């Protein structure tokens, strides 16, 4: 569970056994607290930069698509309610259907878009991983040939 981003700390207890807990330190004000980690895939090679930029772009595109999709579906719900004021007269369990739709109808959409994002963003990251490992296996020529 230890990410590459934790700064190295002297182990508090002796012995080679890995600690179950990750140490996180409080940064001092003014100190460049999160100096970019030495990450193997973030070397200053152009290929890696291209890969990372395209990962960021695809994740951002996914997030914007999901957000837009949710806002649009919320707007549609509202449009339906505004366009059909007759729904106020239809009663279900003693309350107007329009109130019930607005009160309970949005949550399935929220969960659906969250699930879509979770699956698709994980897939984007898996794609990035395989791209990076293929690039490092095949040498710089193969990797450089990729768009």
């Amino acid at each position, binding site marked *: *569970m230890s*990410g590459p*981003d*934790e*700064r190295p700390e002297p182990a*508090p207890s002796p012995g080679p056994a890995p600690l179950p*807990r*990750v*140490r*996180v330190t*409080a*940064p*001092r*004000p003014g100190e*460049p*607290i999160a*100096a*970019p*980690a030495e*990450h193997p*895939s*973030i070397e200053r090679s152009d290929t890696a930069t291209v890969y*990372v930029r395209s*990962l*960021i772009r695809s994740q*951002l595109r996914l*997030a914007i698509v*999901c*957000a837009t999709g*949710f*806002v649009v579906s*919320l707007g549609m719900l*509202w449009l339906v*309610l*505004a366009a*059909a*004021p007759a*729904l*106020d007269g239809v009663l279900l369990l*003693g309350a*107007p259907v*329009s*109130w019930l*739709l*607005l*009160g*309970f109808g*949005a*949550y399935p959409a*929220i*969960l659906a878009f*969250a699930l879509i*994002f*979770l699956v698709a*963003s*994980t897939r984007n*990251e*898996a794609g*990035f991983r395989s791209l*990076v490992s293929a690039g490092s296996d095949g040498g710089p020529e193969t990797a450089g040939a990729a768009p």
Partner: protein
Amino acid sequence: MNPVIGYVAIAAVTVATALIGFFGLRISRTTQDFYVASRTVRPWWNASAIGGEYLSAASVLGIAGLILLQGSGGLWFPIGYTAGYLMLLLFVAAPLRRSGAYTIPDFTGARLESLAVRRITTVLVILIGWFYIVPQLQGAALTIRITTGLPSWTGALAVAVIVGLIVAAGGMRSITFVQAFQFWLKLTAIAVPVVFLLITVGGEGGPAVDPARAFPAALGPASLDLYATASLVVALLLGTMGLPHVLVRFYTNPDGPAARRTTLIVLGLLSVFYVFPTIVGLLGRALAPELATPGEADALVLVLPGMVVGGWLGDLLTALVIAGAFGAFLSTSSGLVVSLAGVISQELAGGSVRGFRVAAILSSLVPLAVALLLEPGGLAGSVGLVFAFTASTLCPVLVLGIWWRGLTARGAIAGMLGGGLACGTAILLGPLLAAAGGAPALMLAALAQPAAWTVPLAFALTVAVSRLDRRRTPRGAERFLARLHVPEGAA
């Protein structure tokens, strides 16, 4: 209402909270434990804790009160509170967890390599946190007044003192357990009474309710004001990601994917929870229209079970909702106090445990003073304004900082100050102008719900100034962004 029920319920939830808090204290050994539970918390625990911390007085009492008072306009609040977590999942959850920083000032300061940005973010976080605690204390004041008959200020004082002591003694390790417990307490406390309410109302053929009077078309979803609703939704959607007590929770996830899974579970928990205050609000419109006055409506959740069910069962259900409501004040306030104390002690005391304790006490006393001085407004409404302010200040710098390498320190500062100034002025000026009269209705609407124009303004300022300041793009921006987005284990 029988005051004994109130005393017993409040005492029970306080003792339970303190016990879990101090039981957790024994596990807490190091400074790291004290701050963020050493990132060892499992997604389910973490999600329950996030839910427990997030469901505040506004959720437990405010939503039902607002539905009773304003009709279907109140239905948008729980949607926004939940969908705010969707936006958090989409735009910040995993990258922010990977950043390695654990407060918002840590993040902005490191991302933009600027001490000034860090300082300004710190001030904003503290302001937001304090003003978010105020409605919690006002909720406590209302609850104490309604349930025990004691003067209002005792409720605010009790919550502030309890929270300050627990946080100063235990830190976040115990807070995680407390918060997880609080979520399930709140869910039970409102779900069980709702079930009994529905059985009672539905069972005997139901009391004669005229739906046209309880749910008038004039307050129905079709007749809501477009601008006010859209602006509220913008504030709630984009405000959640900047709340200080929300972000600090994500650092207790082991990695980015875990942060995402946790958020998904949170969304599920919130969706289930908000069904119940909504039902109470709708029932209240039908059964207790006499409560629909601005000062009293927020008490609907507390009094409806006793009114409708009655007898010893009614008393028991009342005790349960009081416990749940008091739990909400305790948990949200303590979550906020923990994150504020973390930020303050890091800035001023170098992150020492002693500094944290002092900051915790300070962070409970300042909002107490504000709560005692200010006239209480509607709970959901005041919390909504804090969301608008957060969305206009911290949301642009977080989102652009995570996704746009062109962001500069000056751009971030311009956005935070411009958005904050615009939104803050609107919040302060709006009620004054409305009281004075004579101002055009369009302007009053824009001031009453400012997010729809202050959030775009803040984004535009941030982007425009960063563009003009292009030469000062942080040198490490490319690497920092890579670190936020490259998945764990990609080598």
